[in-house]
């Protein structure tokens, strides 16, 4: 389709857009403010049963036996599933959508087989005619456990004598390969230059260890699914997820079914942030529906969400950063140890790839360790792996600035990555806008505003790759000239609005006549899931291509109606204009509606259908400024001013782009100040509700100011860069740096909760 050339043309033209960059009301808005939007738990089918899951109360236990007889005998119980009902899958890494996936792990995480590996691990599930009977039946299922020693924390799990979760887990990436199983799933290294030489040439070296705790994505909508199996075995699934095609593929793999026998309809999704990029309940619901012959609905409680889904890794990150006296970075080294949860697959390698990527750093190395322990298997969380590495690096840079007596913003400006800068993971950056975010920060009144007593200001930057990948779009012209835009990506934060805007822009038509829809797996071709900040970029590109194809067809149809060639037809402002001047022939422009109305006579319905594998995603960079005030009596920290600045390429709907920056920043503030998974000595999660797992609320926060820097991505027709992930990267260090300046102590362990900060303040006082 000539994407790249088209893209360059549009970006370089610097045209005034009619719709791109405006702030219309989102197309799905009315249903969402009136309570009519249908989310996963809202699906209701005739004869539907309720399914509930029985979960392990132990952090680590061998499952000796499961006796379901008493539950099965209870009137109203129509189906029970245990691990024995799902096929055993080979222990191998299969090609997944974005990253390789071990479907055996996904299956065992959905329902335990030989061992329960964390508090909350699903062991069995039951479907019954009412929720009361389902719970009664769940209590009657007798699981005989042999409790085993457990390990929760990453450094403990790496110890020689740690209890081993998987007796077949041999560390990958070590030469020679170990002969003994351990909890260390793998080691990955990235390097460029010569770090030993680099550190030898450094005048100043900052070296510290930083820790972060496991935190949950915290979506307000718990996981929910309805499954129905027809008498011919065809499976229908309705659920909220970040990808209906992901659910279809994962269920097919886990259940040993053909993809073609499963249809997945996406419900509205009540937040995901990466946490809904896998399956938990879906395969269980399908088996229960198969066994009972009835539709089955399963909805997690909040406690189940906390105990058994997400979170992201708690981490231990060691950073060593060397610089010249003038502030020039010379060498950087990171050792990252990330909790994977019960099965391998932490985002440690992504921390290693992203941590230094904001900077020109000629000599760099990152060693990434993926470590299992008796926690829920981690799931993607917004820029997976990047915030923790960035916390270490951006804290070290702040400390370096203090040591050198430099302004931390100037130090970043001096070393900022730009076009041509090499990354630790290989490629050199093309056109990026990191410098522009720093300059915008410098120019922002926030940066130079005065501070009061007990207040401090922090600055930090962050990077995320952003991805493209497979996306499909259909643009259908209706009989009256209105248009339907069908895509295959769940709308998690307003993407219908941006799809409609881009289609209307290409077609030159009235936005109110464009209706964006999200198709089920039978209605639109494959699209990779909503994640990686890819939808407005990749699916948007498919929409633009499909709309351009429609324009081509419209010109051909107009040419037929005028009996000229398509080259004689120009498409402008939603109408065809004939450029051929012929004596005595007045050819008034043909509107989209007029061409659509006559489509049957010129060749049939007009429709553009495009499937692409989008390349050219533009990396994203952000810089955040945070002011805090610390109460030295209690150790409580309050964020009093916050500014998030980001290169967004081009904002299709600026309000929803700002919203991404604001929401990401606040999730990062929660990560920095409050949120953490707390386990007791028995390995049981102690804070399974929102009262104890304290996410930021409105009264904790100021307004979150945003600055959208627009350095268009040459790889997209309108210059779009993904925006969703970057904003959660800078806040951890921005907050910690601000607290460090407010109290005059370097805080290296998150969350900076009141007791922890108070102990640090009191400790410093005691030490004089």
């Amino acid at each position, binding site marked *: 389709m000539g994407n790249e050339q088209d893209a360059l043309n549009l970006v370089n033209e610097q045209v005034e857009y009619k719709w791109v960059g405006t*702030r219309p*009301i*989102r197309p*799905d*808005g*009315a249903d*969402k*403010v*009136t*309570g*009519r*939007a*249908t*989310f996963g*738990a*809202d699906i*209701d089918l005739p004869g539907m049963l309720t399914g509930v899951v029985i979960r392990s109360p132990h952090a680590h236990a061998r499952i000796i036996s499961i006796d379901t007889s008493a539950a099965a005998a209870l009137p109203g119980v129509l189906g029970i599933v245990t691990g024995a009902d799902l096929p055993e899958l080979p222990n191998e890494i299969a090609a997944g959508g974005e990253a390789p996936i071990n479907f055996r792990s996904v299956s065992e995480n959905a329902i335990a087989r030989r061992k329960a590996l964390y508090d909350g691990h699903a062991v069995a599930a039951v479907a019954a005619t009412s929720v*009361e009977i389902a719970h009664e039946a769940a209590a009657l299922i007798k699981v005989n456990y042999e409790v085993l020693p457990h390990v929760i924390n990453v450094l403990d799990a790496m110890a020689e004598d740690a209890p081993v979760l998987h007796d077949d887990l041999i560390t990958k990436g070590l030469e020679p390969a170990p002969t003994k199983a351990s909890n260390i799933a793998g080691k990955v290294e990235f390097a460029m230059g010569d770090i030993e030489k680099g550190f030898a040439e450094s005048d100043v070296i900052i070296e510290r260890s930083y820790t972060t705790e496991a935190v949950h*994505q*915290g*979506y*307000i*909508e*718990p996981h929910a699914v309805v499954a129905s199996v027809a008498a011919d075995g065809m499976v229908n699934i309705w659920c909220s997820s970040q990808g209906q095609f992901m659910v279809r593929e994962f269920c097919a793999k886990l259940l040993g079914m053909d993809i073609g026998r499963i249809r997945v309809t996406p419900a*509205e*999704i*009540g*937040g*995901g*942030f990466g946490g809904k990029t896998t399956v938990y309940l879906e395969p269980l619901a399908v088996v229960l529906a198969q066994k009972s012959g009835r539709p089955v609905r399963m*909805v997690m*409680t*909040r406690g189940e969400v906390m105990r058994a889904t997400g979170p992201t890794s708690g981490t231990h990150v060691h950073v060593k950063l060397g610089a010249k006296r003038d502030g020039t970075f010379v060498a950087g080294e990171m050792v990252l140890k990330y909790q994977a949860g019960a099965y391998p697959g932490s985002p440690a390698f992504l921390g290693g790839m992203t941590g230094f990527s904001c900077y020109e750093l000629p000599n760099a190395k990152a060693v990434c360790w993926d470590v299992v322990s008796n926690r829920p298997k981690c799931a993607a969380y917004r820029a997976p792996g990047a915030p923790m590495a960035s916390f270490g690096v951006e804290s070290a840079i702040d400390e370096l600035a203090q040591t050198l007596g430099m302004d931390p913003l100037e130090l970043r400006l001096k070393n900022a990555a730009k076009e041509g800068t090499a990354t630790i993971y290989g490629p050199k950056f093309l056109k990026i806008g990191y410098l522009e975010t720093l300059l915008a920060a410098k120019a922002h009144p926030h940066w130079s505003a005065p501070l009061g007593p007990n207040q401090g200001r922090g600055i930090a930057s962050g990077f995320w790759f952003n991805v493209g990948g497979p996306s499909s779009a259909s643009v259908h012209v209706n009989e009256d000239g209105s248009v339907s835009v069908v895509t295959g990506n769940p709308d*998690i*934060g*307003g993407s219908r609005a941006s799809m409609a805007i881009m289609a209307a822009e290409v077609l030159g038509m009235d936005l109110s006549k464009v209706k964006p829809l999200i198709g089920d797996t039978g209605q639109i071709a494959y699209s990779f899931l909503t994640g990686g900040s890819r939808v407005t970029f990749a699916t948007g590109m498919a929409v633009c291509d499909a709309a351009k194809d429609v324009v081509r067809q419209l010109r051909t149809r107009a040419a037929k109606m005028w009996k000229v060639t398509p080259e004689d037809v120009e498409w402008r402002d939603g109408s065809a204009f004939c450029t051929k001047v012929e004596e005595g022939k007045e050819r008034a422009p043909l509107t989209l509606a007029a061409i659509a109305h006559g489509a049957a006579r010129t060749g049939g319905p007009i429709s553009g259908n495009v499937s692409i594998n989008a390349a050219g995603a533009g990396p994203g960079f952000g810089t955040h400024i945070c002011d805090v005030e610390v109460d030295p009596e209690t150790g409580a920290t309050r964020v009093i001013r916050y500014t998030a600045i980001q290169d967004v390429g081009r904002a299709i*709907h600026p*309000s*929803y782009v*700002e*919203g*991404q920056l*604001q*929401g*990401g*920043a*606040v*999730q990062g503030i929660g990560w920095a100040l409050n949120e953490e998974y707390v386990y007791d000595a028995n390995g049981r999660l102690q804070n399974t*509700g*929102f*009262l104890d797992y304290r*996410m*930021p*609320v*409105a*009264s*904790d*926060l100021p*307004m*979150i100011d945003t600055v959208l820097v627009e350095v268009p991505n040459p790889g997209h027709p309108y210059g779009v860069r993904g925006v969703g992930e970057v904003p959660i990267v800078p806040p951890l260090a921005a907050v910690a740096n601000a607290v460090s300046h407010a109290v005059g102590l370097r805080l290296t362990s998150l969350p900076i909760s009141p007791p922890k900060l108070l102990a640090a303040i009191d400790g410093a006082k005691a030490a004089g």
Partner: protein
Amino acid sequence: MAKHHVTTTVNREPVELLCDPSATLLDVLRDELGLIGSKEGCGSGDCGACSVLMDGRLVCACLVLAAEATGHEITTIEGIADGNKLHTLQQQFLEDAALQCGICTPGFIVAAKALLDRNPDPTETEVRFWLAGNLCRCTGYDKIVRAVMNAAAKMREEAVHG
């Protein structure tokens, strides 16, 4: 277990139903009456996604037993608009892009209505503390707080000019 007979008013309409004595108001709104706009985010009164008004007072429907609704007037998100004419708050949430995924939105709108019914001219701090019982994980609250303040201003304007 014998079902409990409940006679109540939901969104100005008389409602009669039989429910399990342990059923919450949220259970019967969603499962018996099909009013799915009230959401269950936690079941423990911490997230506010099930916010409804009971005789004008803001409550979490997950913390009220259905049996307790007898003789009271319940207003849910479905009762906020006047037919298909959106309430000023609903319209302002759309105009200010005060929602992303939208799961928390019904609760926020109901809670904000309870605030503006009491205090038509709240400060930003008052809005933030009143809405502290409603969790949103997408927006960082900025645009929600602005939408409530902007809606309040419009409603004051409407009250003056009719």
